[in-house]
């Protein structure tokens, strides 16, 4: 691996940071970084008054220029993430993405022996420039303020490449760790699957518990070749003070199959884009997500199922529970291009409101420009059913515990669809812990 990219310690986000990173990068990447910084400097900050995407999510309290490029990370956080990996998926290669401090890939020998590349994105950019460029292609430099910023100043990152016809023998587990007041972080996962390759990737995101203000500009970009299989799971469990902006985008070739799972548990404010672009005929994407928001959390998910080729199929289900003063915002679009005949797409968002003060907005949409397609959407929001609660209480289960069982039950069909069993068990435990209630913690199967 090459030496990690260094910037002036604790430098605030600004042109000097971008210039320093560009100077330390290979020429193709340096150009990209410079162009990205120019775009970032030009683009206005998203505003709930001006931008439809941000209409219900207010980030006026986020001051990017006050966030710093920190090299410190909390050993407790990394230790906890390592234990999660060891318990849930000991067979998986383990990569830590904590720029400047921990950039580690462990337990990857079996994968490397298959010709699979698992390394930092910095390393890949130097040693596998062509692959890295291809892998980053689905992301335009200037498509948004936060994508431009990411392109200009990302460090660390994890790059995974699977050659044609190779089925990875083990998953890759990536721990994105951040710590430090006002840290700016750019957790990054870049995946490239050649034709007929297959791989499972698990992305986890953790910072110290509590109300430490941090900013995370997360990117996960995936390219899956013809006939490939990609299982992708993400777990967002940042601390309570985190601003989390994320783009997870998969571009799928002909007959490629994506199974995507996302769990949203942490952060103070989240704006997450989940996007499947079905570029090749016959491509399929199943996207499942769960979100539990409490306290003053604000979780915004925006999904895109882009059908760009004939005979493509996509299905998305996001289940959300909101409690206390928490708020969920969901908007999702199935976009069917004229050439995507016989497209089959469904988008569904179901919300469970657990407190009077909690709120959930849901706007699934269809935009269909092709003939002979089958597309649909659905959205529901409701409180815990009084008869369900009564049924459980009539057997002696106290109300809070009854509610916890019902919430867990509500989430269960999504948990059941998580493509990796050990990771599904971890999600169940984290969910139970967040829902609270002793019965819930014991309900795991």
């Amino acid at each position: 691996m090459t030496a990690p990219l260094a910037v002036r310690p604790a430098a605030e986000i600004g042109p000097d940071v971008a210039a320093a990173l560009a100077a330390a990068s290979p020429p193709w990447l340096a150009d990209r970084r410079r162009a990205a910084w120019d775009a970032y400097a030009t683009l206005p900050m998203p505003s709930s008054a001006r931008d439809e995407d941000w209409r219900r999510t207010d980030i006026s309290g986020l001051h990017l220029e006050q966030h710093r490029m920190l090299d410190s990370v909390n050993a407790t956080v990394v230790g906890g993430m390592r234990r999660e990996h060891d318990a849930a998926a000991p067979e998986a290669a383990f990569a830590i993405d904590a720029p400047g401090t921990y950039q580690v890939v462990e337990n990857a020998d079996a994968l490397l022996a298959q010709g699979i590349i698992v390394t930092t994105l910095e390393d890949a950019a130097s040693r596998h420039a062509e692959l890295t460029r291809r892998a980053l292609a689905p992301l335009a430099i200037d498509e948004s303020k936060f994508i431009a910023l990411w392109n200009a100043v990302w460090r660390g990152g994890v790059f995974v490449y699977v050659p044609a016809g190779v089925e990875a023998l083990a998953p890759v587990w990536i721990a994105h760790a951040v710590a430090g007041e006002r840290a700016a972080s750019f957790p990054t996962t870049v995946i490239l699957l050649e034709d007929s390759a297959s791989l499972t990737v698990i992305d986890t995101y953790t910072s110290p518990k509590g109300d430490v203000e941090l900013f995370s500009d997360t990117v996960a970009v995936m390219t899956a070749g013809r006939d490939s299989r990609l299982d992708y799971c993400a777990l967002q469990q940042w601390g309570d003070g985190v601003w989390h902006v994320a783009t997870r985008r998969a571009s799928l070739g002909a007959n490629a199959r994506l199974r995507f799972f996302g769990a949203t548990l942490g952060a103070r404010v989240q704006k997450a884009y989940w996007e499947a672009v079905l570029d090749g005929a016959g491509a399929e994407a199943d996207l499942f997500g769960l979100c539990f928001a409490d306290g003053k959390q604000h979780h915004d998910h925006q999904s895109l199922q882009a059908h760009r080729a004939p005979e493509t199929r996509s299905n998305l289900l996001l289940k959300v529970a909101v409690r206390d003063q928490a708020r969920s915002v969901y908007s999702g679009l199935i976009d069917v291009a004229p050439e995507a005949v016989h497209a089959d797409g469904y988008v569904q968002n179901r919300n469970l409101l657990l407190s009077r003060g909690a709120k959930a907005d849901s706007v699934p949409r269809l935009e269909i420009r092709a003939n002979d397609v089958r597309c649909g959407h659905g959205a529901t929001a409701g409180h815990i059913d009084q008869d369900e609660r009564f049924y459980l209480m009539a057997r002696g289960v106290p109300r809070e515990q009854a509610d916890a069982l019902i919430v867990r039950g509500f989430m269960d069909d999504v948990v059941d669809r998580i493509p990796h069993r050990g990771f599904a068990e971890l999600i169940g435990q984290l969910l139970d812990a967040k829902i609270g209630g002793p019965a819930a913690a014991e309900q795991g199967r």
Partner: protein
Amino acid sequence: MSGTPTLSVHGLHVSVDGKEILKGVDLEVPQGEVHALMGPNGSGKSTLAYALMGHPKYQVTAGAASFDGADLIALPADARAKLGLFLCFQYPTAIPGVTTVNFIRAALRAQGKEVPAREFLNRLAAEMALLKIDESFRQRYINDGFSGGEKKRSEILQLAMLRPRLAILDETDSGLDVDALRTVAEGVMQLAGPDMGVLVITHYPRILQYLRPDRVHVLHAGRVITSGGAELAQRIERGGYEPILGAVAAAPVA
């Protein structure tokens, strides 16, 4: 045979959505006895069952109900269950995502009746065999996609596992074929005895051939209008409710 009343209901008035359904119910079920509460459709039988178990939609506006001396009205449903009351639902609620087995364990724990895992599973297997419940039931969610008969068997399984002191069977016989009815009724009779009394709610006397009540009460228009021994059920079997309702209407008001 008759001892101190376990369940004691006096002048109970219950409203649902502001409409009064029960208009002064009096009823006493002593410990260990089997009582039948009969009555035509719409007489308020199920309302009494829900009100006794504490469904928040069923508002007690007057009267009293106690179990073993404890005032029920002030208690939430879970506290009533802990006292030893059990309701076999006429229409058991489906709860997707929660398996019945996990739920029974959680209920036992909540009632302070937890047993070691092995003993629990042994008991469960034995009770499931008695009730002719299929093995696949263990993985299934509470009442989710169950047939009518499966729901009733699942209710009796919970009854058998939880061992309450008084079981209220709300139209447990409805929707069951003859064989299923016998299985369910035999399951109940195995449990009924000095430790568990039964209040059978039904408008149809057949189940009483198995359960053989000590007392039969007839509910009509929100009140218990007459009570008697098992012969009362036979009269209803033969002649329906009308002669009884007519006789009561003709009798002078005390």
